[in-house]
C-alpha cells in the first residue's frame, strides 16, 4: 500500500520522534500543559506538515494552502513543535510556551501566529470553523483541502454534530476530519465517562465517508489522507486510533497523563527513551 518510498517514511518517523522530544522538553519547561495527547498525535501532525498538506512556510497566507484546523486546542504543543521543525518559528521559541508575553499561548491563538489558522480550546467548535472555511472556499472554486483535527472526547459536544450535519448535507468533500481516537479524557476512559461508540456508524449515518487507521503508523496515515483526497461527494472522517503518550512506555494508555507535564526527572527519563527509539528507527527501518 505504500505510496511513498521507505526512506521518506523513515524521515517522517524521525521527525515525529524529534517533535516528541521537543514536546517533552517544552512541557517540562512550561510546568503545566498536556502530555498524552500531543505525544499520541505526533505522527499525524508530522505527516500533515512534512508530507500531506500543501503549505508554504514562506507564505503562510498563501490562498491555495490547505487549512490545518486544530479543534482540541489543548494538544497544541505538538503543533508548535512540528511547525517549529517546519520552519514557522525558531525552535528556541518553544521554550516560551505558556509564558507571559509568548506567542505560544497555552491554547492556540491565531492573532498571535497567523499560521495557526484558528483559535481553539473550548471543545467542539473546530469542525464548524473548518466547514465554514471549506464551504466558503468552494463558493469561490478554490481547490484547497481543509483538515480538522479533533479529540475523541469532543464527540460528546453538541456542536460537533451540528457541524457534522451541515458538512454531510452540503457534501463538503474538500473537508477531511481526523479524530484522535485515544480513548482517554480528563475524567477517565471515554467509554466510561460518556460512550461515543459506535463512532464509525455515527459518522456514516451523518453522510460522511469514514476511514479507520492506526494513527501512530505514518504510512497508514499518509495513505488514508491520499485516499480521502480522492473521494468526492462526501466529507471524509479519518478515525485515527492512537496511543496516548505514544513513545514513552510507562505513560502509554494512562489517562492521568492527559493534563499534566513531566517533572525534571521524568523529562530526562522520557528523553532517554525517545533517543533509544530514534536509534531503533535509524537502524531497523527497511531502506
Amino acid at each position, binding site marked *: 500500500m505504500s505510496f511513498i518510498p521507505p526512506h521518506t517514511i523513515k524521515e517522517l518517523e524521525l521527525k515525529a520522534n524529534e517533535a516528541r522530544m521537543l514536546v517533552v522538553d517544552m512541557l517540562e519547561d512550561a510546568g503545566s500543559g498536556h502530555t498524552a495527547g500531543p505525544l499520541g498525535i505526533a505522527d499525524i501532525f508530522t505527516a500533515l506538515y512534512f508530507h500531506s498538506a500543501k503549505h508554504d512556510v514562506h507564505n503562510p497566507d498563501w490562498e491555495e494552502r490547505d487549512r490545518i484546523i486544530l479543534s482540541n486546542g489543548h494538544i497544541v504543543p505538538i503543533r508548535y513543535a512540528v511547525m517549529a521543525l517546519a520552519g514557522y518559528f525558531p525552535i528556541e521559541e518553544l521554550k516560551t510556551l505558556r509564558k507571559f508575553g509568548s506567542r505560544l499561548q497555552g491554547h492556540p*491563538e*491565531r*492573532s498571535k501566529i497567523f499560521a495557526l*489558522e*484558528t*483559535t*481553539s*480550546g*473550548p471543545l*467542539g*467548535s473546530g469542525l*464548524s*470553523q*473548518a*466547514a*465554514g*472555511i*471549506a*464551504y*466558503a*472556499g468552494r*463558493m469561490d472554486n478554490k481547490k484547497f483541502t481543509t483538515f480538522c483535527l479533533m479529540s475523541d472526547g469532543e464527540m460528546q459536544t*453538541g*456542536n460537533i454534530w*451540528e*457541524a457534522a*450535519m*451541515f458538512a454531510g448535507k452540503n457534501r463538503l468533500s474538500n473537508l477531511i476530519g481526523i479524530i484522535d481516537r485515544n480513548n482517554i479524557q480528563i475524567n477517565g476512559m471515554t467509554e466510561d465517562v460518556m460512550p461515543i461508540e459506535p463512532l464509525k456508524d455515527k459518522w456514516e449515518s451523518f453522510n460522511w465517508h469514514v476511514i479507520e487507521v492506526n494513527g501512530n503508523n505514518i504510512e497508514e496515515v499518509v495513505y488514508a489522507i491520499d485516499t480521502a483526497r480522492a473521494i468526492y461527494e462526501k466529507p471524509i472522517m479519518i478515525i485515527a486510533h492512537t496511543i496516548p503518550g505514544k513513545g514513552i512506555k510507562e505513560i502509554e494508555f494512562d489517562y492521568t497523563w492527559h493534563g499534566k507535564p513531566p517533572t525534571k526527572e521524568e523529562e530526562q527519563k522520557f528523553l532517554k527513551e525517545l533517543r533509544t527509539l530514534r536509534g531503533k528507527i535509524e537502524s531497523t527501518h527497511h531502506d
Partner: protein
Amino acid sequence: MFDPKLHKDLFSKIKLEQKATRDGFGLGLVEAGKQDARVVALCADLSESTRTEWFQKEFPERYVELGVAEQNLAALASGMANYGKIPFIMSYAAFSPGRNNEQIRTTISLNNFPVKIVGCHAGLSVGPDGATHQALEDIGLMRMQPNMTVLVPCDSNEAYKATVAATKHNGPVYIRLAREKSPVFTTEETSFEIGKAQIFFDGHSYSGKLPEVGIIACGSLVYSAILAARELAEEGVSVSVMNLATIKPLDTQSIRKFAKDCGGIVTVEEHQVTGGLGSAIAECLASDFPRPMEFVGVHDRFGQSGTAEELYKEYGLTVSDIKIAVKKVRARK
C-alpha cells in the same frame, strides 16, 4: 427644538409610519449584498421572521441555511470570515447570542473576525412568545466581549443604516433588533455613524430653559423618551434626549458633555438594567463625572406573555415611567 433631520411630524404618532427594525435590517442586508460581494447571510431556520429571505431571494448562492443550530451558526461564520467572507448570522437574540455566547467569544471576538451577529426579536416587545423568547441580557453579553461593537437601532431607518455601516466595519458587530412595529421617526437624512451619539431632542431650544435632566435611550424606546420629554416640557421641566445607537464603543465625550449640560441622567432600555445601556453610562460617568441617575429598564425579572403594551406597563417602560424617573433625578440634584 428637535433634530431637524427627524420626521417633520415627530409628535404625531398617527402620521408616522409603523415599521419594525427587522424590516430596515432586511433592506439593509440586501443593500450590503449589492455593495460588497463578500457578504454572505447565514440563518438558523428563521429566514422569514428575520427578513433574511429578502437577501436569499436576491442572492440565493450567498445564502447559507444552518437549520436549528446556533452554535454551528456562529462557529461556521467564523470559518467563513477566516476565509475572507463577511458573514451576517441571523437568529433570535434569545438563541444568538443567547445560546452560542462561547462560540462568539472564542471564534469571532477573540479573532476580531468581521462576523455580524443579528439578534432579532429582542426585548419584551416580542410579547406573546413569553419569557423564553424575550432576550433581556444580550446587550450585556455582547458588550462584555473585547473587539465587539454593539448597535441598537431606534427605528427601521436607523436599522438600515446600521446594517450598511456594520458591513464596512472591519470587526465583529452585534445588531439588536425588534419584532414589533414602532414609529419610524428618523428619516433618510438623519445622520448615522457607528460610535456617535446624537441629541434628538434639545430641551433648551424646545422650552427656552436649560435642560434639567438628560435621557439617554436606545431602541424603539427612544421615541417614548422623546414623547416624555415633550410632555415634561409642557409641565415646565426641560429635558434633552440622546439617541445612543452604539452602546459600544461608547461615545464617552458626548455622554460626559451631555451629563454636564443636563446635570442628571435617566437611561431607558428594553433590557436588564444590569449590564445594558444604563450600566454602560453609569460606568462612564462614575469614573470622572458622577451625576444622579435613574434606570428605566427591566429590574432583575424575566418577561412573560402579553402584548408589548401590557408588558411595557408591567415592567415600567412607558412614557409615564420615564417621566417619573426624570422627576426623581431632578429631585436628587
